[in-house]
């Protein structure tokens, strides 16, 4: 496998989901792209503020990935952080198309039903799985 794209959703399960994604990348010998999206839930921000929010988001996610890879002895997993702005369901397919991603992981809890996930699979052209606490319980 070349690259796994992990999509962050926030929520209380995010820490567990990120860990599961790093473990998956380590086990699959793949690199991990962490896609953090500033979607419509942030509201209409002033351009300058949106830039700073994106910058801080990237900073925090990078720090989190460094912590998690060290804690899981997964320093050999190559990681990159992508911060994008726009509707999440449009950003994910666009990001997949511009890179060599061959698996998309949605961090649980995911506010999408099975049909919506299937539609996302169609749009990206790669398998889409849910990962994290809910997936573990299932």
């Amino acid at each position, binding site marked *: 496998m070349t690259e796994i794209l992990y999509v962050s959703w926030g929520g209380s399960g995010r820490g567990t989901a990120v860990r599961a994604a790093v473990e998956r990348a380590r086990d699959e010998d793949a690199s991990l792209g962490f896609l953090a999206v500033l979607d*419509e839930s942030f509201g209409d921000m002033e351009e300058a503020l949106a830039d700073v929010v994106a910058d801080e988001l990237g900073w925090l996610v990078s720090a989190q990935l460094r912590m998690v890879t060290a804690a899981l002895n997964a320093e050999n997993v190559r990681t990159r952080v992508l911060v994008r702005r726009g509707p999440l369901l449009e950003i994910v397919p666009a990001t997949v198309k511009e890179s060599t991603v061959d698996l998309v992981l949605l961090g649980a809890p995911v506010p999408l039903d099975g049909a919506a996930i299937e539609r996302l699979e169609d749009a990206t052209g790669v398998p889409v799985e849910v990962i994290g606490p809910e997936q573990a319980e299932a």
Partner: protein
Amino acid sequence: MLPTLLATAAEGGSDGTSLLDVELSAVILLTTAAGVAILSRRIRVPFTVSLVIVGLVFAFTPSFVDLNVSPEFILGLLVPPLIFEATLNLPWPKLKADLGIVLAMAIGGTMLGTFIVAGIVRPVVDIPWLAAIAFGALISATDPVAVVAFFKTLGVEKRLNVLVEGESLFNDAVAIVVFSLAVGAAADGTSLSLGPAIGEFLLVGLGGLAVGIVLGYVVSAIVLAKVDDHLIETAVTLALAYGSYLVAESFGTIFNVGEFHFSGILAVVAAGLMVGHVGLKNTSPTTRLTLENFWEFLAFLVNSFVFLLLGIEIDLTEIGVELGAVAVAIGSILISRLLIVHSFAAVYSRLRPERAIPVSWRHVSWWGGLRGAISLALALSFGTAFDPEVIATIQIMTFGVVLFTLLGQGTTIAALIRKLGLAGKDANITEQQRRQATLHSKQAGRDELRRLERDGLVFPEMADALVAHYTADIDKASGGLARYVQRHPELELSILLQTRRSALAAEKRSLLDLSRRGVVDVQVAEHLAVELDQRSIALELLEERWESEPSIDVGSDPEGGFQS
């Protein structure tokens, strides 16, 4: 209305008390509020509930606090800033996501609740239908201050907070309109007919929203966007809070178009939402921080007055005399809210399964439906619409219900939240903080040993031996904290955010220090400090987003594909 209120305040109380007496009363209330705030944190009783208890004690010393509490004073002077502050901090995207249930509860629920309460109270207490409807309306306005404070302390999900606060903001206005219609019909000697009542309700409500939206937009898109001065911008928001209320309530008089008025409360709600959603994004970080601090302080100040005055106004002996009527009133509000909350939430959950409201949240929303200042203000504003005995009975029932909800429900809601498992994060966060504090104190101890060695107060061999002990303790505490966070990954980002915030604060302190020492120009330091403020605000936005449960608008795509 405001100039009259201020003039009254300037002249003293209506009974001829001097300005000095009013000032002294205000000082006593403020000092008391500060004392109660300190005490309530130690005894873990909600601040507002503690204030009411102290107010009840004050009531036994009538000359101690000399303020004339009129309905206009509460509605015109105290309520607008409270509503404005609450809406300013209400995240519009989250409110919009659940606007359907919020409005259904606020409009449909309040109207239904009005008639359920009236239907229960009227035959038992034996008051006219219109009086029972007026009581049903005034007692349907919920006051979430005490409950929301618990939500924050216990780490309850933001969405539940938005649902409870959003409903309360809108139902205040609905309660006032229905109350006015019932009292107006009684005063005119007519009956309350549904068609005209709905027409007037829509006119008053939509007119109020329109006034608030227009004024809020003018302030947000013009003043806050064009003026870059945190003091002026803050002053304008204060003027907006009172101005929107006044313009809506006095619309006919101001524009010389007759006697009618719009809902002042809804005008403030709309203006606050407009500033919170549009205006704040047009301001500099410095203005934003100033606004947040100013409105937080003003809400504290006004809440202190409101709840102390609530306690002072409630006469315990009268409640004792009318205990039967008060018990019926309490029973009626509990039954009506139970029916409304559970049925509305069940229907909403069926219609929008992706936004389902958990049963545990419904219990909290039911038991958290406290009553406060709006109910009290309306109970004091009957005029001569009904027989004095009927008005007295309604006022006593109102006082009884307000007291029961604040002292009974307000002191037990936290236990219910914990029992329902909605404060789950609490124990983990406390443990995480305990481990962080242990690590911090050990490091401080080791630093002090090194300082004593440098100062020649401890000889090196002794310092080395003690430092070795501390270093072992620090390694143990540090490893323990790391393992704890690994076992609780949900804490990871909150620690990161906290750490980042502390680092930014340190950066800002160092800049100001450089500026004070004359190493760098003041303007250079200020420019860099503004950037750091902006980063702090970015962290707030991210934290707010992460605290909420994920939601997404999937949309209806019949072709089954996403845009790519």
